[in-house]
């Protein structure tokens, strides 16, 4: 019977039947799609209806209105007369800054602690274990508040700032030596310290104040020299790799590049007569004016996020290293590689395949946790936009949608970069 149906061209056409799995599934999919469209549409229509019933403003026009509030950390110029759109950008950059630096710090610290947990030295091992257990078992909000309140409480007021510079160091050394009867050594040191002038870096409970370099005329040449040094370093690295692959000879790429990057701009600066002067912070009235300053809210959030996430990264690194079989290190040792190169050239590259995917999740977590900064007054995207701006304008739907879109975009970009990196370090099977 089935043979007859197959050979009959008229019956070969599809017929409307629930027993046909292909037809059935496409019908279900179409119905589901329609239901989804209807849901989205009814959400939208309902929201519009309710908003106009309550007389609440809607639309994105508010982005051009005057914001009116101040922001304590701005990477781009901003003042109260600028728009909500500008405030959004300021908040976004603040989020990106703390997330980017946090990821770097957490990675470095996490790798160090992860390797330390595998150390044969009992003290190092115990310290690393204690670090991991403390940081990953306390809520991140608590850690942020701890860093903020504990650190703030310990710091002096602006008028009693700790000046950091060589002067106090030499001064203290000089007076110390004089005090123990070595005046012939101490006196010239104290005089030298006085010559150095006042310190230029200050720490107080308003943050960290540093001199800001102001580049005068001719600074373009220094920048050009820096770019040139970077290009030449890149070419050297390529040449050295080719030579190593051909002959096996090593070349100190790192040190030569470092030398180039330092020396070339210095020569350029000397040629144009050092057109850089420092805008040194100075105490005036309540606070320090001028210079660069890092606010304590930022420092507390950065420290908390990076130490918290480093605890998780340490465990990921440890598991990655343990996943590489012992035979690998034994083979490397038998070829005469010392412990350092064994770790760097044999173990870590193989461990990376295990480490990178969960590492991506930790980077995403750190970025999202940065929104907790609102608790200590760090002006990130969440605080400025989903907080102050939302409160000011009341346009919850637009603002929450924009904020979600931004966090989603940051996360997707992070995932893409890490995915690309994962492909590069993945085991290439030949």
């Amino acid at each position, binding site marked *: 019977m089935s043979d007859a149906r197959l050979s009959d061209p008229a019956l070969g056409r599809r017929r409307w039947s629930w027993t046909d799995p292909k037809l059935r599934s496409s019908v279900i999919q179409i119905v589901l799609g329609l239901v989804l469209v209807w849901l989205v549409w009814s959400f939208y229509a309902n929201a519009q209806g*309710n*908003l106009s019933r*309550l007389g609440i403003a809607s639309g994105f026009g508010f982005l051009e209105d005057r914001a009116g509030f*101040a922001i304590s950390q701005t990477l781009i110029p901003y003042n109260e007369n600028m728009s909500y759109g500008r405030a959004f950008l300021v908040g976004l950059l603040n989020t990106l800054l703390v997330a980017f630096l946090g990821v770097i710090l957490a990675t470095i610290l996490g790798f160090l602690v992860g390797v330390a947990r595998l150390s044969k030295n009992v003290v190092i091992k115990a310290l690393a274990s204690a670090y991991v257990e403390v940081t990953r078992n306390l809520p991140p909000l608590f850690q942020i508040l701890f860093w903020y309140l504990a650190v703030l409480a310990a710091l002096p007021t602006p008028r009693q700032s700790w000046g950091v510079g060589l002067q106090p160091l030499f001064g203290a050394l000089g007076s110390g030596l004089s005090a123990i009867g070595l005046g012939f050594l101490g006196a010239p040191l104290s005089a030298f310290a006085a010559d150095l002038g006042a310190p230029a870096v200050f720490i107080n409970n308003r943050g960290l104040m540093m001199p800001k370099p102001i580049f005068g005329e001719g600074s373009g040449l220094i920048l050009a020299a820096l770019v040139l040094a970077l290009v030449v370093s890149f070419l050297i690295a390529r040449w050295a790799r080719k030579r190593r692959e051909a002959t096996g000879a090593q070349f100190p790429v790192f040190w030569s590049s470092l030398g180039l990057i330092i020396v070339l701009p210095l020569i350029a600066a000397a040629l144009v007569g050092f057109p850089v002067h420092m805008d040194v912070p100075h105490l005036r*009235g309540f606070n320090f004016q001028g210079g660069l300053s890092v606010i304590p809210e930022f420092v507390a959030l950065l420290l908390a996020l990076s130490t918290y996430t480093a605890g998780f990264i340490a465990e990921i690194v440890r598991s990655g290293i343990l996943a590489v079989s012992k035979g690998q290190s034994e083979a490397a040792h038998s070829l005469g590689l010392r412990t350092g190169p064994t770790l760097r050239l044999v173990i870590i590259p193989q461990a990376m395949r295990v480490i990178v995917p969960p590492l991506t999740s930790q980077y995403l977590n750190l970025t999202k946790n940065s929104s907790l900064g609102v608790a200590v007054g760090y002006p990130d995207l969440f605080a400025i936009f989903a907080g102050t701006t939302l409160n000011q*304008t*009341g346009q*919850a739907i637009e603002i929450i949608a924009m904020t979600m879109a931004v966090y989603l975009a940051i996360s997707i970009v992070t995932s893409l970069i890490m995915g690309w990196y994962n492909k590069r370090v993945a085991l290439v099977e030949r």
Partner: protein
Amino acid sequence: MKRILLAAAGLLSLVGVAHASTLDEVKARGALNCGVSQGLPGFSSPNDKNEWTGFDVDFCRAVAAAIFNDPTKVKFTPLSAKDRFTALTSGAIDLLSRNTTWTMSRDTTLGFNFAGVTYYDGQGFLVRKSLGLKGSKELEGASICVQTGTSNELNVGDYFRANNMKYREVIAFATLDETVKAYESGRCDVFTSDKSQLAAVRLKLTNPADHVLLPETISKEPLGPLVRHGDDQWFDLVKWTYFALLDAEELGVTSKNVGEMVNSANPEVKRLLGTDGKYGEGIGLTADWVVRIVKATGNYGEIYDRNVGPSTPLGIERGLNNLWNHGGIQYGMPVR
């Protein structure tokens, strides 16, 4: 997390269906949901028996007494300045009585109705005595702490600009507690807020005598209770509760004498207390609604004196908040 939940609730309520009458909902629920601040002595703070007390709290109790004849039938929701509006929009609370400044944008584009001005206030500055400041014109270069989501956050920028001064930074914190902690730890030179709030916060500091309020008032801060747009009956009820408190004080009706005043021959008192006419029915209640209110919380003057007046730790003179016929600008509309 609570913030995110509140925001989500706000979104859901906006995309959800319309509400029934607020008064019916409150009656069916058996309690009034009232938003107050998270702990501000004199205005809303829990006492040692864990009961909410204060000026703003008593207004919630007055509304509850008008509806239920029971001032305890209130569920208080402590809210930060930032979360308060979302809570009201979403329907999580029926009434916001949380020293909120009446501004045009809040009244219009945010979708709220202000029922009146229960407290006329103005923004000031709290500083350490050791700084030796005489006035707010000397604040050039200061670090300023402020609570985010307040009108204070907006006023401070305008004030400095108008006076050709520059602050060093304005640090905005999410809650009052965090703001005060930061000020106390020395993160800022100045804490700015409404003067009544500064007086209350000063009492909470470790050593209140070390801190002083600068004399200037830099803004108008008319504080009052507010409700959502879209339910005029509920708006009327809250508005007339406020007027009734003022009228009761003006006519000398107090929590002690309200029992005798019911028999008063004064036609104004008779209309207010419902022995003449049925004015209470116009707001969905019974004629004797004001009797219930005054019995429970006392009149406006009693509420003021009990919570923030000169005999309390806050010790704030009536000033602008005195009745219109006693040199102030509090003026209750007539019941007739």
